[in-house]
């Protein structure tokens, strides 16, 4: 893959990737875009390692998820308590976060793995196999996280009165 092909892939994938990261960061747009940029740069620097065994999008999401995990770990190492509150504070300040507050509150009920599985499956329409590749988890584990995540979101929706039928 050359520079032009990579730029085309950036144009195709930037929106779903940034949306996934923004939801994963519960509305912190600046942090999400920083992680997305880091992921794209890492992908660009390691283009020769992309073997085509998965789609470019899956490979990119995997890099981005790893970047997110690294950022989270690094932040927790330096200030374990402040990170969560920082993300919530940032999301509260953002206008977009206000519009999507219900979503972020629902995602807040999930742990990172459940949130990742739910977002990739329902919002980014990835298959179980693709999620397994992105998160490096067996398919059955992904199914379990998805099931638990669905249950937690469903319970939250009941509480806020969003339940249908």
């Amino acid at each position: 893959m050359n520079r032009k092909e990579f730029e085309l892939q950036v144009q195709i994938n930037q929106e779903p990737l940034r949306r996934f990261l923004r939801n994963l960061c519960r509305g912190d747009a600046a942090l999400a875009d920083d992680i997305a940029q880091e992921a794209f740069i890492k992908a660009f620097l390691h283009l020769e390692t992309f073997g085509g065994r998965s789609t470019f999008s899956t490979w990119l999401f995997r890099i981005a998820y790893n970047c997110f995990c690294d950022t989270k770990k690094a932040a927790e190492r330096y200030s374990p308590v402040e990170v969560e509150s920082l993300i919530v504070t940032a999301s509260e300040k953002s206008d977009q976060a206000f519009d999507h507050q219900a979503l972020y509150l629902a995602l807040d009920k999930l742990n990172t793995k459940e949130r990742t599985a739910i977002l990739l499956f329902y919002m980014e329409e990835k298959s179980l196999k693709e999620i397994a590749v992105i998160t490096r988890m067996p398919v059955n584990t992904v199914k379990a996280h998805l099931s638990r995540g669905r249950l937690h979101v469903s319970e939250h929706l009941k509480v806020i009165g969003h339940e249908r039928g």
Partner: protein
Amino acid sequence: MKEDNVKAFLNSHKETLPENGFNARLFNTLNYLPQPFPAKNRSPLIVGIFTGIGCLLFVLLGGYSVLLNGLSTMDRIFIDVHAITPDILTTCIMLALAFVALIRFAVRSYHC
């Protein structure tokens, strides 16, 4: 029902993010990074080297005569199992492995 509810909720909150100069900033950063080079496919070279080594060993160790002897006595295997000598067994295993490796390489090359 539960799944439909969750799916509908998440779909209704699916954002369409404006690009907001993200691509331009990224492409600008990429200008200062080492440009990617196409990955070199070294498989033909590796296969060639090992085929050469294999042929050399085959010739040097008298593999041709062993192979002929082994193949000429193969019909006895079906009559008398005790007729299987280590030579025949080794020949069969090596031939099978060579065929598997050849087919695997052919399939991989075709997909690439």
